[in-house]
């Protein structure tokens, strides 16, 4: 790796765009996966991953749950592959599994507001569950393209802001560590990070240019 501007250069960031596949290709891969070909299943994972993770990013209450529900969804999809009916809607089928798993987990967490469980997690789960139950199940194309645009927005940040964004969102450096590195208080840095998130979101939604 090369050092650049004080942070690690990354040749490419972000999840890949959906791989283009027609119904026949999907069904062929499903049949092969059912016959035990794991590589075919991996191609199916690559095909539906962006939509699934996009949906979860908009609905899960924290990043860990995005990762774990994504993984659990693919395991469940693999285990239930025989139940999939070849109608060319594989991504919707997988996303439905993800939605159900997320709903189940949120419901479970929302009622664990008691013994040995974080009240905050329960409150967040209850709030997220309410949103999920009120609809907006599907991530529309605009939301998916927001994720794509957001990568471009990153490049529009000032070098310092970009560095903070990469440390925080990509490398997930704890804010206390970053505060030491940037010689700021945690509260000041939290405000900066908040501003970066808001501006990136605004840029991705096409609501304004970055300052």
């Amino acid at each position, binding site marked *: 790796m090369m050092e650049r501007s004080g942070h690690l250069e990354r040749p*490419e*960031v*972000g*999840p890949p765009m959906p791989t283009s596949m027609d119904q026949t290709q999907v069904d062929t891969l499903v049949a092969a996966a059912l016959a035990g070909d794991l590589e075919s*299943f*991996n191609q199916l*994972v*690559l095909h539906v*991953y*962006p939509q699934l993770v996009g949906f*979860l*990013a*908009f609905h*899960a*209450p*924290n*990043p860990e*749950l*995005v*990762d*774990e529900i994504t*993984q*659990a969804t693919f*395991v*469940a999809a693999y*285990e239930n592959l025989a139940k999939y009916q070849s109608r060319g809607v594989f991504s919707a089928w997988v996303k439905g599994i993800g939605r*159900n*798993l997320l*709903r189940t*987990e949120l*419901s*479970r967490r*929302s009622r*664990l*507001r*008691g*013994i*040995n469980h*974080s009240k*905050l997690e329960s*409150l967040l789960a*209850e*709030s997220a569950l309410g*949103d999920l139950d009120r609809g907006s199940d599907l991530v529309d194309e605009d939301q998916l393209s927001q994720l794509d645009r*957001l*990568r471009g927005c990153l490049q529009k940040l000032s070098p310092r802001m970009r560095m903070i*964004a990469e440390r925080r969102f*990509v490398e997930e450096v704890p*804010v*206390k560590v970053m505060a030491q590195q940037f010689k700021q208080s*945690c*509260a*000041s840095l*939290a*405000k900066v*990070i*908040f501003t970066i*998130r808001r501006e*990136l*979101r605004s840029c991705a939604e096409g609501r304004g240019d970055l300052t």
Partner: protein
Amino acid sequence: MIDERRFLELIEFYLDNDLSAADETELVSVVERSPAHLQQLRSILRDQNICRTALRGFTASDIAQRVSHLVQGWRPASAASAVSTVVAHAVSRRQTTARLYWIRMAAAALIVLVTAPMLWWFIRGQPADNDATAPRVVAVTGRALTERGTLIALGDHLRIGGIARTDAGAQVALVWPDGTQVDLAGGTTLAREAGTGEHLRLDLGSISVVAAKRPAEEALEVHCADATVRVVGTRFAVAFADGKSTVSVSEGLVRVQRRSDGKSSVLGAGQQVTVNLLPPPAPMLYSAERIEAVRQAVDAGRHPWVDSMASLRSQIGDLLAPRLPDAGDLLVPAASGPQLDRHLQARAEIDQLCRSMIGLSLWGRLQMDDPAATAALERIRRATDLRLIGDEADLLVSDMLVVHVLQSADLLRSTRWWSDQDSARIDRWITEVAFPAATRLEDRRRPSPQRSRGLAALMAIEAWRGNLPQVRARMSQLRSELPRLLPAVSNARMAAAEETDNGLFQNMIHVLLAVDIARAAGGEVGAAPAEWDAAVQAFVRRVTRLKLQATHAESALSSALFGNQPWRTTQIPSAALFPDTHTNSYCWYFPNLQARDPRLEQ
């Protein structure tokens, strides 16, 4: 109000899993008091998810590789167990990584410092080949020792025969390969023993357990000096002190068995028991298994439970809001003549109290929600402080107060909110108020709506007292009275008439309640007699004819009758069902989460 920068700082700490207990208390108090702050928190977390997802360098092929590894290297018995285990990992990761960034660094230093060879042949490093299921230490705070007095560190494995001891204030988290996690609190001594499945011996202190689903024959068992807790997949805590074990369940079901006499009970989420007090009181309507079945039906998105739960959730604010009636005398005159308004006023006051009491009890138990359960208890106390007087006092005591107070108490008894004083209060109220009122109604010579209400109330009282032979005897009495309670001539009139036969309606709804109590408490599972079937058919003909024109009461009875359970029917047209999923069941005050048992409608 919290300073914005502090609020944002707390959110970043949350994202790092680095909130201290005080931080979390502060953040919770802010978002609980202010819906706007809760929304802002959600919005920031969503933005974090989106930025992270869009910008992070990991690729879908990483995920594909992880999934490949999971499905290739480990094939559980069922998809459900695979998924629950993966999600169990998610839960444990969030819970245990709160300190991991720092612990990792501390552990690295510790490993450099502590290099005595004896550590390695005890529980350090990879488990022995014949103990592939050994749990790994994933978090340590404070000082924890093995039985040889060596320090426990991250990455250690607790082999069979090993013992972990935590100092006061210390904590250790153990994770098994299947995702099961056990957290040792300070001052705990825990041993891992040989045997089929997983056997832990708790000598002292307390542990909390998140158990991944396992085959029944490989269950996880926690042995204390006085009890054994057996579990196949759930979350619970066991504490052993002063020679007594206390088990608290926060998810799923566990069976607790007392060693001295073998007595055992199934506990569900929200319940707790001290082992020397086993068995807990028998449920009147809501067994732990039934409550768990409702939770699972809601989790799985099954109808009508998921709709009812969503409806109940939306009403919690309203249920908490109303002013409670003053304790003391409440006049309930006859529902006719010049006192009609006074009667309706008293009825409305009791109705409001009962609705909020039952709704909050149900929400508190199903969601293990402290504020709701506490508010429900307050309403139970207030209801049992009321003294109804007047011509129809017995009627309202029986068909409103008895049924609702005892159902609410049934939901909360054996939970952490319930106290011995509450049990004593209910017993006293039954003796002084409820039983005499119900007996006076039931003593009427001829079968009538009043008599059926008295009978249903008496069955509820006997079930609450755990007097199961009396419950079965009352049910037998009810069966013998059905021909007179539901005469064929009334059925014919019900099917054809424009107006509802309110007496017949009252009889049907109270019979249905009594039948459910008899089944849940008394194990009376006999089929419905012909008289009941005939009345149901007449009712079905009526609501099929009326459909959307059915009255409020008829729609409520339609919803209570609908289903595959015993004494119910699926022939009722959907148009006749009660549109408000919150309030249909035995009577129009009862949420249908209570009336329909998912275990009987698979």
